[in-house]
């Protein structure tokens, strides 16, 4: 598709630097961009049981209502952003289909569905040193005992607002606004070089 050919992700310029960083240091840290994920911002009333059931049908799982948690099924996940707000994430190219399905689910109830796929890009940070790296800039407790798999949080990384999601024991996803992505990338590369010092 022409549209796919002319797309450019926010961190396209950092691919090589991330690869170099991941190759160095014997597998302690790996960083890469996961570009072009489908992302939709959903606002809806969690107290509307019928609505929540319709969304569960659409997504294949119930929207998380416990704050700062996420749920997923196959390629779709929903991250809790607020008491009436979720980020729905899917694989590339799915945003129009997902928007339509969710709009069908909303069917006139109060809420909003907005395609925000290009609003943020996603960084995967993995390896045994991932948590330690993030601890240089994220002010919340991201130890696995306090922020285990299934946890997500809107917070800060250094001076940028980010969403941090723990994927497993040693991997995180970071959702960063596209305009701030190169700042976050520069920060990560700088912090990673510091990590290697005693």
């Amino acid at each position, binding site marked *: 598709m022409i549209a796919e050919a002319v797309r450019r992700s926010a961190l396209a310029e950092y691919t090589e630097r991330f690869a170099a960083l991941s190759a160095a240091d014997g597998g302690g840290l790996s960083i890469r961009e996961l570009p072009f994920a489908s992302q939709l911002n959903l606002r809806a009333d969690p107290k509307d049981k019928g609505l929540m059931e319709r969304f569960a049908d659409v997504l294949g799982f119930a929207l998380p209502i416990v704050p700062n948690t996420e749920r997923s099924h196959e390629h779709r996940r929903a991250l809790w952003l607020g008491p009436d707000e979720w980020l729905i994430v899917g694989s590339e190219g799915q945003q129009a289909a997902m928007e339509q399905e969710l709009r069908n689910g909303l069917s006139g109830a109060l809420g909003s569905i907005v395609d925000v796929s290009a609003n943020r890009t996603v960084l995967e940070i993995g390896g045994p040193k991932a948590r330690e790296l993030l601890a240089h800039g994220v002010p919340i407790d991201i130890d696995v005992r306090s922020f285990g798999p299934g946890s997500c949080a809107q917070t800060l990384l250094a001076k*940028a607002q980010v969403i941090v999601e723990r994927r497993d024991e040693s991997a995180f996803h970071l959702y960063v606004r596209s305009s*701030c992505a190169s700042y976050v990338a520069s920060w990560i590369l700088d912090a990673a070089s510091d990590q290697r010092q005693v």
Partner: protein
Amino acid sequence: MSRLAAGGRIDRTRPIRLTFNGTPYRGYEGDTLASALLANDVRVVARSVTYGRPRGVFSAGIEEPNALVQVGNDTMLRATQVELVDGLEAIGLNGRGRLSAEPDTGRYDKVYAYCEVLVIGGGRAGITAALEASQSGDRVILVDEQVELGGRLLGAGWNDWLETSLTALRSQPDVRLLTRATAFGQYDQNLVLVAQRRVDGGRLWQVRAKRVVIATGAHERPLIFANNDRPGIMLAGAARTYVNRYGVAPGKRAVIFTNNGSTDAGAADLKRAGIIVEAIVDVRAGDAVVDTGGDEEGLRSVVIAPLTGNGPRREVECDLLCVSGGFNPTLHLFSQAQGRLRYDEGLACFVPDAPPPNVAVVGAAAGDLAGRGQGTIMPYWVVPSDGREWSTHFVDLERDVTVADVRRALGTGMRSVEHVKRFTTVGTGSDQGKTAGINEAAVIATQLGQPIGAVGVTTFRPPYVPVSFGLMAGRNGGDLFDPIRVTAMHPWHVAHGAVFENVGQWKRPWYFPRHDEDMEAAVLRECKAAREGVAVTDASTLGKIDIQGPDAVEFLNRMYTNAFDTLKVGSCRYGLMCTVDGMVFDDGVVMHLDPDHWLATTTTGGAAAVLDWMEEWLQTEWSDLRVRLTSVTDHWADVAVVGPRSREVVAELFPKLAIDPQSFPFMAIREGETAGIPVRLHRITFSGELAYELWTPSWYGLALWEAVMAAGEPLGITPYGTETMHVLRAEKGYIICGQETDGTVTPQDLGMSWIVSKKKPFIGQRSHRRSDTARLDRKQLVGLLPVDGEQLLPEGAQLALQPNGAVPIKMVGHVTSSYRSAALGRTFALAMLQRGRERLGSTVYAPLNGHVVAATVTEPIFYDKENVRRDS
């Protein structure tokens, strides 16, 4: 040489070379600069700040007030804390340190750490507390300012216990041991900041602990007597530490002056090291050191006399005087955490009273001074002087404050320990008065005949030790000082030589110089292209808020001064927003995309503030409104194609779209696709020319920009930046929030009553009726044409009604925007002028440095007053 033949925790297999004041010396790994200097018989280390008196090493740790040195660009370091490394070059300070003007090239880092228990202090009490806490699987962090854990034990031979305990701690997976790490501030809810020294900089730990255990020990304090500051006079415990831990004899012939039992063990250690103990002067036995003798090289003798009666005085030759006045529990952090202190008569020191929640104090810091061996103490503070002369009785060695200074403060009528501190500067040095503070209280107490507990101590504030700005800044310096935000088209701008300006956190192209153009030439060229041909600018930085819900119109009507009921789907309308006080806050374009689906743009700098403002009203005042907001600022890229020939470029890119003026009128919205890129087109203009804003998801922003440039190339399409954008809109009299407005300007001041609805309530409406907001002599927006069309008024220039008024000149307004205009062939400006609309045609004057610029007041519009070009 005073290095002992054996003993100490130094590594005698690793010699180290250093220079001090240019002279080479040798020490060993494990030495501090202070221990190495003492080993090399260097007794004079620095000179005091006010009187330039020679000073030597006084302590063996962080409380050092005398031995201040400079290493490289780092000044006011304590020699007792400087680790010896090969090639160290240090100089002793002569008075105050001087900051270097060179940039700090240190590497600074920051780590956020969470734990269940933070133990501050790695001596016996701290290690015990950490071991206990680690049994439960809790996360434990133990910090200690020294190079290795053990505290006092490092000089006292408890090595077996230390070895086993540290091995046990290190084996626990959830225990973190930080050395060279000084906890310097304890804040609300157990936030503790720790400065960890590293070879080439430092690491700041920001620790949140559920519980804090303060195990910071106690600092020995001296007794005060005449000439108590000579090199060779040191704290008794420090002398012992130099012998036991560093294998150094700090002198050959010692006198001990004490009021408590801690010096017994020290005397034994000195003797074992071959130091002759000439006398032990004990206040409890009725004797005191009343004066000392010496020269530029330091201490030579002490004068001993009975405290009472007329017994004989005797002078004893010595080169080392070990002084102990007792111990002060180290409670700076405890106090910073709002812990209260109380004076304990029996211990003769301040101890913790009720601790704050989740804070515990253990060991010597809690007043358990058994480990120090204080034993029976006779509280004693100041040895009286002969003949009422107090000017060599030093209370604060680092600040050169004497008992005479304290008496002078009291003589003026001051009674509070805080006032005396500020008058005399006692306790304000870089050592924060660690060996002086309690003595200050005691001196005041004895002078006034009050109990010490009633006098109290001054408030403890962070930092406990000096902390460099570099450490606090961490890696937030240079390019990482603040987030730099860029658009999807940024690589193109960089590649094509754009000069950038900062707009908030964004880097926006300011102008695109060609060849050797300066800004003035570039901007004139860009403006000409926009007005006569076709030009293009990157407008992606504008804030964009998605608005959905059946009550969207009601919401917009309340937020903006104008109404949106009549705005049809597929159309845009400019909107103005005020704060509750009626002042202009932000503006933008509101787009009606679908029934119940709108999008509002904001200024670049106002994006976050406007969204926050809107959410505040929805959440706290209008929770019944059925409308939901989502930020989409970074989702959309915006390419603005501008100029009388812009339609041709749009036609080229969107051949299937009907773009004649009837099909695609001003302020309409259309959808299209070009080269596979989905685009929403808006006929909006900020320049007053025919213009189209092309929006596409930011993934396609660069591709769209390149497609526009390619399509416009035959027409000489010209990229332009923010400076040209500013000129073009100013020629049309369009305001920029934050330029013409500053939070004190109403829509009416701007001549924008046309946008203020009389039919519906909106935020700010009531304030427009306030008598001050309705004053007739408010500043109003006008245009200015300098009488000399080449003269450019500076933005911010104040305006006066007379060319040569008497000073102080009455100011009646100021210039908000000022430019050279290609279209007008001259300079022009916008200004806020008192009663501006009454003064059209008159002349005002801008007094500048050495000359005055005259300008004619005009309507604030200079170009295409009928909007013919915009609507074409």
